[in-house]
C-alpha cells in the first residue's frame, strides 16, 4: 500500500531480540524488527535463514528461547497458539495446509472461527442466534470469495483444487478471520508467472481495500519489490538489514549472503545491474522514489487481472477508495 509521506505509521507488531535454537542449530539469533500498521513488510533470505521460523514464533508454534514480541503494544510472547488469531494475526503456510476434505466455503467459514459467539447447546439446537451467526459468516466469506475471485471453486473440495488455487484459498481463509496482520509464507512458491502477477494485485488489494497489514516471506524478488514497503534480509538466523526494497537489494551483506564472496565484488553497486533484480530497473533509476513500487507496464497488465480490478469496485468491503485502474 502507498503510505502517506512524512510521519512513519504507528508500530503494529514489534519483535525484540528473538532467539531460538533447535539443539545446536541457532535458527534465529537476536532478531529485532517492527511491522508498521498498513505496510507490506517482506522477509527475504536464502534457504535456512530462519524466515519461516520467525513466522512460527509469531504464530506461537514455537516458544522463543529469548526475546519479546508485542502486538498493538501488548506483550504476546506467552500467548497460547490458538489465541494468536483472536489477537488479529492469521497466516498461510509454505506448503499449503488446507482442510482438504472440506469445501472451499467450509474452509473459509473455519477461518471465521475466532468470531464464534455461540455455545455448543445453541449450535446443536441451531437456535436463532446460531442461524444469524451462520448467515453473517456466509456473507463475509462470500465477500472474500468475490475479492479473490474464488466463485468457481466455492463448493469444490479443497483437496481436489489445483495448486495455485489452493494458495489463494489459504489467503482467503486467513482473511476471513478479519486479521489486522496477515502473515504470508512464500505465497508465490509453486505459482506460474501469471498467477504470481495476480498475486501481486491481490496483495495490493488486500492491503488497500481491507487495510490489512501484511508480512510476507518471499523468494520472488519481483514480487517483493513490487508490493513491499520495507524489506528485512536474513541470513543464518540473523537479520542483516532492514530498509526499502532497493536498499536491501544492493546491500553488500545481502549480496554476500545470496551469492557468496566474489573476487572483486567489494563494491557491488558497480556491477552491471543488481543481480537479485533481473527484471527490475537498475538501482539508479529507482533512486528518489524508494516507496513507490514498480508499476507494471501497460503491456504486462493486459489480460485477466484488469477484469478483477473492475469487479472490486463498488465492493462492500471497500471501506476506502476503490483501487485505481490505469489503462
Amino acid at each position, binding site marked *: 500500500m502507498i503510505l502517506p509521506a512524512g510521519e512513519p505509521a504507528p508500530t503494529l507488531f514489534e519483535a525484540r531480540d528473538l532467539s531460538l535454537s533447535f539443539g545446536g542449530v541457532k535458527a534465529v539469533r537476536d532478531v529485532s524488527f517492527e511491522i508498521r500498521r498498513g505496510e507490506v513488510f517482506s522477509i527475504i533470505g536464502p534457504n535456512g535463514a530462519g524466515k519461516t521460523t520467525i513466522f512460527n514464533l509469531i504464530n506461537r508454534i514455537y516458544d522463543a528461547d529469548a526475546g519479546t514480541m508485542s502486538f498493538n503494544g501488548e506483550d504476546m510472547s506467552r500467548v497460547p497458539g490458538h489465541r494468536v488469531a483472536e489477537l488479529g494475526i492469521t497466516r498461510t503456510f509454505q506448503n499449503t495446509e*488446507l482442510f*482438504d*476434505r472440506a469445501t472451499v466455503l*467450509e474452509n473459509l467459514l473455519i477461518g471465521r*472461527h475466532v468470531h464464534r459467539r455461540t455455545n*455448543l447447546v445453541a449450535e446443536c*439446537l*441451531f437456535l436463532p442466534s446460531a*442461524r444469524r*451467526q451462520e448467515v453473517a459468516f456466509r456473507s463475509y466469506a462470500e465477500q472474500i470469495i468475490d475479492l479473490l475471485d474464488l466463485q468457481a471453486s466455492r463448493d469444490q473440495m479443497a483437496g481436489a483444487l489445483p495448486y495455485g488455487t489452493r494458495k489463494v484459498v489459504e489467503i482467503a481463509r486467513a482473511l476471513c478471520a478479519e486479521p489486522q496482520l496477515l502473515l504470508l509464507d512464500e505465497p508465490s512458491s509453486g505459482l506460474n508467472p501469471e498467477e504470481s502477477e495476480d498475486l501481486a494485485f491481490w496483495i495490493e488489494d488486500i492491503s488497500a481495500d481491507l487495510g490489512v497489514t501484511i508480512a510476507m516471506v518471499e523468494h520472488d524478488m519481483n514480487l517483493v519489490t513490487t508490493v513491499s514497503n520495507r524489506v528485512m534480509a536474513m541470513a543464518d538466523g540473523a537479520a542483516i538489514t532492514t530498509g526499502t526494497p532497493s536498499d536491501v537489494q544492493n546491500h553488500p551483506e545481502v549480496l554476500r549472503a545470496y551469492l557468496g564472496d566474489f573476487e572483486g565484488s567489494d563494491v557491488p553497486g558497480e556491477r552491471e545491474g543488481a543481480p537479485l533484480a533481473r527484471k527490475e530497473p537498475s538501482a539508479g533509476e529507482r533512486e528518489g522514489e524508494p516507496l513507490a513500487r514498480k508499476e507494471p507496464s501497460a503491456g504486462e497488465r493486459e489480460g485477466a487481472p484488469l477484469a478483477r480490478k473492475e469487479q472490486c469496485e463498488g465492493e462492500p468491503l471497500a471501506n476506502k477508495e476503490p483501487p485505481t485502474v490505469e489503462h
Partner: protein
Amino acid sequence: MRFVLTTHYGQDVNLFRHNGQRFWYALLAVGAVAAPLFLNAFYVGELVLVFIWAVAGIGLMLLVGYTGLVSLGHAAFLAIGAYCHAVLLGYGVPFALSAPIAVAFTALVGALVGIPALRMTGVYLAIATLAFERIVAYVIEHWEPVTGGLRGMSVPQPEFFGLSLADSYVLYYFSLGVLAAGLFAAANLLRSPMGRAFIAVRDSEISAESMGVHLARTKTTAFAVSAAFTGLAGVLLAHRIGYLAPDAFTVQTSIQLLLLVVVGGLGSLHGVVFGAIFVGYLPQVIALARDVLPSAVGQIPGLELGVFGAILVLFLVFEPLGLYGRWLKIRSWLSQFPLYRKATHKRQKSYLRTERVH
C-alpha cells in the same frame, strides 16, 4: 441434474436445499412412522436395534469421521450409558431424570478419556481406547453390588400413561424419535462453528490452531459429544435387551461400531444410517448363511468377527467412501444417465499429507 438458485445466505444454511429433498425426507419419515403397522413384533424389534446402532453410530461418526480420532472403546460408553441408566432406575429415579443423568455421566467420562487423547493419534489412540474398554468391562464384572457382575442385572421397565418401553412398538417410536432428534442435533452441530472445528482438527491441526481453534478443547468436546450419543444409545439398548450382562458390551461391539462408520461412509450422517442398517442386519445374514454354507465353514465359532474384519478391509480398499459414497455414485449415474462417463469418479491423485514436506 438440479440447479438451485440461491437468493439469500439463509438458504445455504438450511438443512434441506430444495423441495425435492424435503419431499423425500418427509416420505421417509412417513414410512418410518407407518412401518410398525405392517410388521410383526420381531421385525419391529430388529428395527429398534438398527435405530440404536444408528444413535451410537452418530457418536462414533462425529469422533472418527469428523474429528479424525479413532476409538476402539465405544462399547464402553454404550455400557456406561446402559448400566448407569439401569442402576438409577433400580434406585427408583424416574426415567425422565435417569436417562439425562446417564447421558451426562457418559459425556463426562468421554471428556476424561479425551484428555489423554490430546497427545495421541491414530493407532496409539485406538489402543488406548481399547484399554479403556477393558478397564470398564473389568469394573462392570467386578462391581457386583451395583452391576450384578457376571450374572448381570435386569433393567426396570418404567411405564408412562400405561405404555411400557418393554413393548417393542412403544420402544420403536421412542427410539425413532431419539434417532431423529440425534440426527437433527448432529446436523446442526456440523453446520456450526464447533462442527467445522472438528473437521479442521481432522484435516490439519497446525492450521486449525492458527485459525483460532483451541485444539485441546475441541478434541475434548468431540469425545464428550461422541460419548453422550453413545451413552444415549446405551440407554435405549438397556430397554431393548432388558437384561444387562458384560458379554453384551465387548470388543466385538466396538468393532461393529467402527464397521458401521467405515462401511456407512466416513464423514457423512447418511453413512450412519446406511451403516446401521448394514451392521444391524449383518448378523442375521451371517446366521442364515451358516445354514447354507458347508458345515466346515458354516460351523466355525466366531465366524462373525472374521466376516466383520474382512468386510472392513474390503471397504477400506475398494470403497473408502462407504455405502453412502457408493450411493452418491449411483445417483450421479442415474441423473446423468446417457452421458455418464466412466472416469467421473476415478480417484484423483491429490496432495497427500505424506507427500508434503514440512
